């Protein structure tokens, strides 16, 4: 079916300087180094491929920097003609490459004098902006609203999807905003693809990809980034059904408790505000609701059983965590033991993250 529907791609780049520095480190600690500059050149090739694959395709690039997020490039905005045109360069390509690189350099240069400990990146802000932008382009043009007699042809609207290229670990404080963003993406029928380029699996972004029907990839061979990008993330939603892109079916659906940020199997939930606690508490810390003594006693009585469940190496972490090591050629290890450290390291991450935000 030849349709004139373009696809819209919003790319959210995680540009945390410290994480990119770690990613560029040399082989002994880091088998496949990827520096920011080589990442950008591969990314620009991918963006050019998206623009080239159909004339109607549109593009927006958002950057998440420490504590701020900005729109780096949008194809709908009027081009700035401050650069000299190159006769040997397809103008849209030049436009994208030039603008994206220039804006990133500007922003990173302005970070130079910043303090030692780096603030977490504003991934939520960038993702929310990407959704606002999708909402904007998915609305019929303004003159169509003013004259309701004109029928708006909905089929000419582009098909949106969002690609998040992340290098940072999960931030516990961003759980609720990311969830809200996921649900609004579901409402807008936007697919969110996630590529975790460096570091560990991101539980929040895994859920984002799973709940919106996108695909999540934890990049193991960082030197093959461009191949991953083009094979997995270039195709729009309608073509995905006929292509076989990698999907993940082991997602952690457990939640972190509000009191210690532990990931819990069995939690205690306040019936008024749905705050999650890892042990029975007399007063809800979020909404100050007092709980009746009777339930506390009852829950405390039944607690030893649940405490046992969470202490022993339960099969749930093994089954819910993706098998990270399986394709590395390592000798297969017993699941129950090998996966325990990963859970505790997440706890460590979330704890340090929450400490970091408190101090800042």
């Amino acid at each position, binding site marked *: 079916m030849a349709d004139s529907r373009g696809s819209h791609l919003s790319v959210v780049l995680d540009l945390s300087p410290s994480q990119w520095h770690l990613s560029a480190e040399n082989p002994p600690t880091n088998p496949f180094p990827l520096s920011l500059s080589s990442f950008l050149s591969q990314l620009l090739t991918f963006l050019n491929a998206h623009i080239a694959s159909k004339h109607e395709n549109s593009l927006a690039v958002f950057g998440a920097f420490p504590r701020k997020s900005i729109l780096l490039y949008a194809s709908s905005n009027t081009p700035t003609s401050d650069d000299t045109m190159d006769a040997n360069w397809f103008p849209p390509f030049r436009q994208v490459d030039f603008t994206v690189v220039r804006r990133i350099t500007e922003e990173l240069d302005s970070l130079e004098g910043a303090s030692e400990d780096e603030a977490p990146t504003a991934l939520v802000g960038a993702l929310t902006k990407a959704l*606002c*932008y999708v909402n904007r382009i998915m609305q019929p043009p303004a003159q169509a609203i003013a004259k309701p007699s004109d029928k708006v042809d909905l089929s000419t609207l582009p098909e949106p999807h969002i690609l998040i290229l992340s290098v940072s670990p999960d931030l516990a404080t961003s759980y609720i905003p990311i969830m809200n963003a996921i649900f609004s993406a579901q409402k807008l029928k936007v697919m969110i693809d996630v590529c975790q380029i460096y570091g560990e699996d991101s539980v929040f972004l895994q859920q984002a990809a799973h709940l919106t029907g996108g695909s999540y990839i934890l990049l193991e061979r960082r030197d093959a980034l461009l191949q991953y990008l083009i094979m997995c993330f270039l195709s729009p939603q309608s073509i995905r059904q006929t292509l076989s892109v990698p999907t993940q079916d082991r997602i952690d659906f457990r939640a972190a408790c509000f009191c210690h940020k532990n990931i819990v199997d069995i939690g205690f939930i306040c019936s008024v505000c749905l705050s999650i606690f890892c042990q029975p508490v007399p007063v809800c810390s979020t909404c100050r609701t007092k709980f009746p003594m009777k339930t506390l006693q009852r829950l405390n009585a039944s607690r030893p059983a649940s405490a046992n469940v969470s202490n022993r190496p339960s099969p749930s972490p093994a089954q819910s965590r993706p098998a990270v090591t399986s394709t590395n050629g390592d000798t297969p290890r017993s699941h129950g033991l090998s996966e325990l450290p990963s859970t505790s390291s997440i706890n460590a991450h979330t704890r340090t993250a929450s400490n970091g935000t408190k101090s800042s």
Partner: protein
Amino acid sequence: MPPRRDADFMDVDSDSDVSLPEDVRGKGKGKAKAGRKKDKGKGKAKDTQPYTWEASYTRSWETVQEDEAGSLQSAVEDWLARGRRKRLLNPATPIRRTIIRHLMLLLDLSSAMLDRDMRPTRFDLTLQYAREFVAEWFDQNPLGQIGVVGMRAGVGERVGEMSGNPQEVLGYLKERHKLEPTGDPSLQNAIEMARSSMSHLPTHSSREIVIIYGSLTTCDPGNIHETLETCMKDRIRISVVALAAEMKVCREMCDKTGGHFAVAMNEGHFKDVLFELVPPPAQHASAPRIISNSAGTGTGSTPADLIMMGFPTRLPDASPPSLCVCHSDLRSDGFLCPRCLAKVCDVPTDCDICGLMIVSSPHLARSYHHLFPVKQYEAVMSVEADAALACHACARPFPTAISATVTDGLSPWARYQCPECKQDYCSDCDIFVHDVIHCCPGCGK
């Protein structure tokens, strides 16, 4: 406008009247008919005087006024302003809402539902809207449960048990032939049935009854006011959407239990009033609750409670198939209860083996935005020289010219500012952020 339309309508009517029946029937008869028609026309003209229950409903299509250029721009802006003001009334501070809801949907299946004043019939429309209502309700209240009771032939009939699975509830409403309307409805029987099926619920859960009522009569075995008393004692909130007219007993039930009463005027309005019941009600110490407390229900003075919930492990699609405990089906995907490791097909649910409530964290997260709303943006009244040129969220350039017609509550510069991060947003993003995303792009919370 309306009188002219009525006159046009009359012309067409009398035309067809004169041309057809005069050949068939006698002359006198035709005249009599025409006369009656005229009377009817007069009655219609009087109808523009609304009934009392119509008074609160504004006819939105009549309020739309074109400006001199024939454009609807001003009307659209006016409409936007009204939406903004309405939202400003919502408190920005976290309020208590009833998140874990239990609802019994009572459908009138009496012969009155075969009336064709709503197209195609009241019954078909009710079924269609009930399905949409259930889908939307579960979208906003993922932890809630719905049961369905029908009222026909003088008895209450259990259509479906209380369930937290949208597909199951939609299944109850799917089989039209099983719900065929007949006989008289009985409010008392149906409410008693709904009440008894909610009697086992713990004290912290909310109980609601939503009645879609087409009949103007009820055929009860006893005194319905006694039923009402017990409902108040059990803190059941009764809401009624009437399709015909206001009945005193329905109004009284809603008023006394803190529910919502509405009479649907047409198809669209029916949907509006039904869907007003979807968002979780704010919890406050309303009059009915105080009454029921003073009446001495005693035990549950605080409706809040701590609930134990389990977060299950999702089995991948490629895992070896095994039997589930809920349907005894052989399937490979499913969820494992964290306490007893039984396998259930779908969440949220109660584990069939150990009774633990099993939810997945996205279900809980879906309700958080009710509890932590985004701060309302302020309309920008004056623009400084160094203000941003484009919306901070969607990068749409702001208009440079000031809008001529300034309505109350709207910014003349079409800019709205977040009080936290001091960034400017356009009106589209203002609506989108507050209605859909529930997260400010500038401050990220």
